[in-house]
Structures are given as C-alpha cells and as structure tokens.
C-alpha cells in the first residue's frame, strides 16, 4: 500500500487520520464484459462485499457493458444471482437491493461507436443525477482481443479524459500474448491514456500473502543481512495445481503454463523476493524496484527451460485423463501444462544465485510458495557424531493454500548424543490473525478507485516480463516440429526433465 501517499492525503483532510477505511472518490465504474465469467464470479461479488462493509464511494454507480441484448432489470437479476452464489459472505437483502439500484446495463458490441455514445450519455446522466461529476473507471474484463478495440473506441468517443474528474482504465490480464503484442497493445493504450490512468491487473498482487512478502522482507531486521548471494544458495518458486484445465481448454490451449502463470504471477513473486527495499511504499517507488530486478534477468537459455504435458494418471485417488484427452483440446496440441525455468538475476545482490520456477496443472498437490534455501554452514561439527539430518536452513513463504511462513532449523534430537534433525518454526496466518483476508479483487478495485497503483503492473514491468519470456516462447515454438514435448503423469510432481534442470546440485522441494 502506498502508505506515504495515504499519509499525505490524511494530512490534507484531518478527519481521515486514524480511520482504517479511507474515503474513495465518487465513482462510476464501467465494466466491459459485465456478463462474462470473471465479472460474475469475482468482480460483482467483490463490489457487493465492498458495499456490505461500507467501503464503496459515497456516490457510486455501476454500468455494465456487454454484447448480449438485455435490459437493466434482467442484468440486475443476473448480478443479484452472481452475488448470492459467489459472495464470500451471506448477503444482506437491503444492501444488495441498494447496490442493484445503482446498476445499469448498456448492450453493445465493443466495436460499435453507437454503444460508446450511449455510454457517454449514461455517464453524463449519472453525473447529473449525483449532482457532481463522478470519476470514471473503465474495467476491461473482456476477452483480450477486445482490449485495443475498447480503448480506441473510448478515445474516439472522447471518454478517455474529463476536465473535472479522474478517468482510469483497469485492464485484466493477459496484457499481450508475447512481447510484440504487448507492445502493440501498449501503443494503443498509451495513445488514449497516460500511464497514471492505467491500472493493469495481476490479481496475485492483491493477495495478502503476496503483499506479505514485502512486509516480511522489509519489516524484519533479521532477514535483510542474509538476503543476498553470500548466504542464499538458491530460490525455488512453485505454483502447482492439482486440478486439470477443467472447461478452460479454449483459453488454456492458446495460452499454456508459461503465459498463464510464469509471465505474470511468478515473475511478480521473483520481483518481490529479489527487489531492493524501496525508499517508500509509493506506487512508483515500489514498481521502480521491481522493474530493476526484472530487467536484471536475462532470458534463460533454452537448455535451462523445461515444458511438458500431463498424461493420464491418478489424481486425488481418481483416474485423471491426459491433457490431450481433455474436452476441447486439439489432438496434436503442443501446449505445455508444465513449465520450469532456471533464471539468474544479474546484479550485485543476486549474481550466481539460481532462481528456479516451476508451475503446472495436475500435479501432486496445490501449493504456491517461495522457498529460499540458505547455504550450508561452513563446518559441520556434528557430522562425525552420526548427525544425518543436518540440512541447510530453508525459509518458505507459502502463498496458498496454507498461508504462512516457516523456517527450517537444525535442532538437537533429545538424547545423550549430539544428533541433529531439521525442525520447523512456523507462522500461520490462520492461527495468528483473526481477520478473514478480503478477496484480492476487493482490494484491487478499491485501490484503483482511489488511484493507488502500487499493486498494479506498470507498462515497463510488463515489457520486462515479456522480454524474459518471449525468447523462451520462440525457442519452444521452434522446437514444436520435432515432436519432443516431454510428459508427466497426472498426480505426480512433474516431468523427469525438470529434475535434470535443477540437479544434480539441487533438488525440487517435495510438493
């Protein structure tokens, strides 16, 4: 969170001092793709929860834009159903009715200028109804091919600027499918909006446990002195899922594991783990440091990458079909469901410390974690006394599902001899905090409405991410013809090739 920015704001309005919930400017939120899956499962329930907590702006309007023909009433009933089904808390009928009163719908194709004229008219009418101009936040929750079309149309309709209020564009991932397409999209976005108007979503950054990586590193003196190449042997970042692709074949087969998780979420975790301490938690100060890390990573040699596809196996005690037999997947698909990379951050702090990333579908279990392995102690005084269990310390930051931090330490096994084995010192969110973490989207929507970009991806960050990933994609594309895509059995820890990537000097943590 941009603590300093908020403090400045607090100084300007003496009444906000001490309040947990800071004021949000009056806003009209326009969701493009308002009838889509993301809107119904995440965005609309998040808006309800904000309303329930009294966290929405005092004057708030929601306009849904999508291609399907329907009226306000039908759309409101769909919104009601989605909220009731997906909200993290039971709904309060009066709050829900109150929220729905502020909802309206504009049916339009995203490339139809008439739709934007209707939108402009609706926005002006809402301003008039409110008696003041409301901030205008456009949330692009459509299929990515519509992002440039919508942005161009917003600009063509003159809706990208307003003389009296802030106008923002919130863009869902993926921001491009490779470096070239990301730059092309950015050119369109930059033609309509200034960078400070653009909020690129990576919902991982809205997760409490991801933000805790910064808190953990920069609020605890004990870790910073060892957080470098002198003490850290290597870093492993894992984003494992036990499920297959479900009904997402259409999307996933075009995307693959590298684009789906590594290019965005996992590189964000790398950046948070390896960044220098920012001078303050202002949005650009934090993002400057993340960009420095990302630009210090050279694209990995193809030999330092592994891709694979799952075959049939057993997952959670049930038979699981292979990727090629999932519904909707083309017979000859070369899309990877597993990706592993070895990266190096070429800077003073991290030179020579390998950072291993792995992600995959249908692995043995669901876990997202950052594992930092320290170097072994220089001299093992206990080895000669039968201490088989001495291991280098590992610091594990678990993002999900069992959120927390654990540190492995060597401890003496009770008994007359000096024998050592690793034990864990654990902090668990579930036992140390009473609060239920808000959904990432609640935090991100609120931050966007307040204009706080700390947890959003800046353009140069996206560019740096694709610059790392693009050469890998190209290398893999070039190898598609040789039929050599490795495989792994569903329900296992991944392909043998991944073990070769990290070995022989290291090994993957058990899933």
């Amino acid at each position, binding site marked *: 969170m941009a603590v300093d920015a908020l403090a400045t704001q607090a100084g300007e309005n003496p009444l906000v001092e001490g309040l947990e919930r800071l*004021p949000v400017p009056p806003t009209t939120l326009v969701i493009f793709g308002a009838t889509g899956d993301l809107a119904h499962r995440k965005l609309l329930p998040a808006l309800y929860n904000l309303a*329930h907590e*009294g966290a929405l702006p005092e004057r708030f309007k929601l306009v849904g834009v999508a291609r399907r023909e329907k009226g306000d009433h039908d759309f409101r009933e769909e919104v009601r159903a989605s909220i009731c089904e997906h909200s993290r808390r039971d709904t309060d009928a009066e709050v829900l*009715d109150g*929220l729905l009163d502020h909802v309206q719908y504009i049916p339009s194709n995203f490339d139809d200028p008439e739709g934007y004229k209707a939108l402009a008219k609706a926005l002006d009418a809402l301003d008039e109804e409110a*008696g003041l101009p409301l901030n205008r936040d456009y949330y692009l929750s459509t299929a990515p091919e519509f992002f440039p079309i919508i942005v161009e149309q917003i600009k063509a309709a003159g809706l990208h600027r307003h003389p009296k209020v802030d106008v923002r564009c919130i863009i869902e991932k993926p921001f491009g499918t490779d470096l070239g397409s990301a730059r092309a999209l950015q050119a369109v976005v930059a033609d309509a909006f200034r960078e400070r108007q653009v909020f690129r979503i990576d919902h991982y950054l809205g997760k409490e446990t991801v933000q805790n990586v910064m808190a953990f590193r920069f609020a605890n003196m004990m870790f910073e002195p060892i957080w470098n190449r002198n003490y850290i042997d290597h870093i492993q970042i894992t984003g494992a899922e036990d499920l297959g692709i479900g009904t997402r074949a259409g999307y996933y087969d075009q995307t693959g594991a590298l684009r789906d998780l590594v290019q965005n979420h996992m590189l964000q975790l790398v950046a948070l783990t390896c960044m220098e301490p920012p001078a303050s938690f202002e949005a650009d100060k934090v993002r400057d440091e993340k960009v420095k890390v990302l630009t210090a990573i050279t694209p990995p040699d193809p030999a330092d990458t592994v891709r694979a596809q799952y075959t049939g196996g057993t997952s959670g005690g049930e038979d699981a079909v292979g990727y090629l037999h999932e519904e909707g997947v083309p017979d000859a698909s070369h899309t990877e469901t597993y990706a592993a990379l070895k990266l190096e951050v070429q800077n003073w702090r991290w030179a020579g410390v390998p950072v291993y990333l792995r992600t995959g579908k249908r692995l043995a279990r669901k876990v997202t974690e950052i594992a930092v392995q320290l170097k072994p102690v220089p001299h093992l005084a206990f080895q000669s006394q039968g201490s088989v269990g001495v291991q280098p310390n590992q610091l594990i930051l678990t993002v999900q599902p069992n959120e927390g931090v654990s540190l492995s330490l060597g401890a003496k096994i009770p008994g007359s001899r000096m024998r050592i084995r690793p034990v864990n010192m654990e902090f668990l969110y579930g036992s*140390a905090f009473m609060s239920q973490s808000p959904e990432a989207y609640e935090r991100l929507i609120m931050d966007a409405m307040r204009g706080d970009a700390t947890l959003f991806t800046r353009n140069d960050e996206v560019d740096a991410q694709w610059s790392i990933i693009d050469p890998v994609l190209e290398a893999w594309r070039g190898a598609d013809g040789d039929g050599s895509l490795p495989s792994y059995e569903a329900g296992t820890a991944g392909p043998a090739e991944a073990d070769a990537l990290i070995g022989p000097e290291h090994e993957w943590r058990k899933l």
Partner: protein
Amino acid sequence: MSEDVWNARDTTPSAIEAALRGLLAHRYQEDRAFVPARVMNLVVIVDRGFRGEVENRLGRVGRYHPSRLVIAAVDEGRTQLDAWATVAAEDTVHRPGHIAVGRERVEVDIGPKHLESLDTIVDPLLVSDLATMVWAPHGHRAGVDALRRLASIVLIDSLDEPQVGEGLERAEDLTGSAYVVDLAWLRSTPWRERVAATFDPPAMRGALGAIDKVVVRHRPDSTAAGVLFCGWLASRLGWRPAALARRGEQLTGHCRARRGEVALELHPEEMGAPGLGGVTIEMASGEAVSLDRGPGGLRAVRRARDGVQQAWTVLGASRGEAGILGEGVRQALLRDPTYKPALQAARVLVG
C-alpha cells in the same frame, strides 16, 4: 468442533496451568493438524450469575474470538478457586494444507476477595508474549486495576456507566496504563468514516473550516457515543471545547473554532440499537449535510446554499451489537491515535 476438558474444585493457578499444558500436549498427539491460535489473551471478569450472557455475546463474535479466553467469574462469598479448562479445535476435517485452529478457554470461579490480587491468579494462565486484553462488562474495577500490569489493552463500553462523565473519566484514567478499546467509540466508526468522506473531495475540504453547527442524534443511553463523536470533530478540527449545558433532554453548547463558534446539540431519540442515529453538520454558507440510519446503509441528505436538497443512500450493512464486540476484539491489535484526543475533548464537553 471437538474439545478436551479438564476441571477441578478448590484448585490453584499452577494446577490449572499444568492442566492446560496437558490438554495441549494431548491435542497435539491426537491431531497433527492442530495449531493453537496465537492472537491474544482475553481476560473477562464477570458476575458468575451473568456469565452465560457474556459468553453468548462472545460466542457471536465469530472469527474474532480471542485465542485464549480466561473468564474470572465472581461468585459472592466464594473463598476457593474452582476451574474448568477446555482446548477445542475448530476444524477436524483434514485436507492437505489445512490446519485445525485450536482455542483455549479457562473459567475460574473466584470470590470478591480475589479481585484485588487477580493478577496472581491470571498471570500463569496467560500465553506469554501475546497481547492481553481485559474486559469487565459488570464493573469489577478492582479486578481490572489488579490486572493493569498484565494487560496492554482494556476493552470498555463507555455506555455502560450510568453517568457519562464518570465513564469518560474512567476511560481516560485507563489510557494512562493501557490501550483502551471503547465500544462506544467503535459504534461511531461508520459515522466518522462517512463524515470524513463527505469532506474529502478537495472542493469540500474548505467547508470544514466553515462548520458552524453540529447536531448529533443518539439513543438515550448513548450520550457517551454522541460526545465522543463531537470530541472527535473538535480534536481533529482544532476546536476548543467547552462544557455543554442540559436543556431538557438535550445537551447543547459551543466549541470555539478559528472562525467563530460552532454550536453543538445532542438529541436523544428512541431507536433500536445503541449508538448514534444521525448527524447533521451545517456550514455558515447555509450548506448542510446529514446522515441518518436507514435501510441498507446511511441515508445521506445534502442541502446546497440555495436550499436545494439531494438525498441518497450510503451503502453498508449494520454490524449489530455482536459485530461491535467482534470489532472491539479486532481493534485490540490495532492502534487508533484519534481516540485519546477525542476522549479528552469529550470530557471537557461533559464538564
């Protein structure tokens, strides 16, 4: 929810502490997913006859339940200690990556004579290195005072005191040795948030200096919440408070602001839940904003200089009284730097 239970009559604090350790060790052996919650200790001092009512209130706070709850139930005429200890696990469904969060509860029946040395009974029963909060909803000041050296937080409800001035004086006294979480203050949080939001747009900030009248509507038993709200405005906006006078049911008076006087009025009104029912803030220009309880949130009305009015609903669900207590427990681990100055201003207002 499964639990292990221990109890004893005529026991000692060290025996209770040993029993707790035993219960925890047993729970660890039985359930590898067991992890005791380690958020805070809450010591509640109650009249034994009314402990059920307090336990019901605590039972409704949901996820904000404290990790180790120590109930000191005061039983008239009692000379010995009887105790019950339980260790319960919230979730016994074991799935990979999931934990069974445990809670510990100790109830000790004590006599009035134990209150002045309650710290010697409670100390061994607390989890070391966790924040400790004390709550005495039935008074028992001697018990609270005895626990001052152990407790870093005291939970109070200024509305509980029959005399507003006395309640606020006690609160200020407690702030000298502990962080005070005052439920009367927390009931005003949505009002403070909304008033802050009203004046947050840059165009409205100038109006803060032009406020010339504040009317607070409150339940008759919630005068303390009303004066704390006025004290908050006074302390945040640099007004010099002066004692309010009683006019019939109302309290009226003035604060001195830079530009002149600000009239204050507190109007008691019948309403369902304790706390505030409405706030109206008027500016010298003739503009006014008011907020009142309504369905689905607060009903906001803004009156422009020309007298034209606009009304809308500021969305938000009521937390209810159970929610307020839960919020009190949650706030124990946060720090609100504005309460103490508001409290000091409120004390001046009540004279």
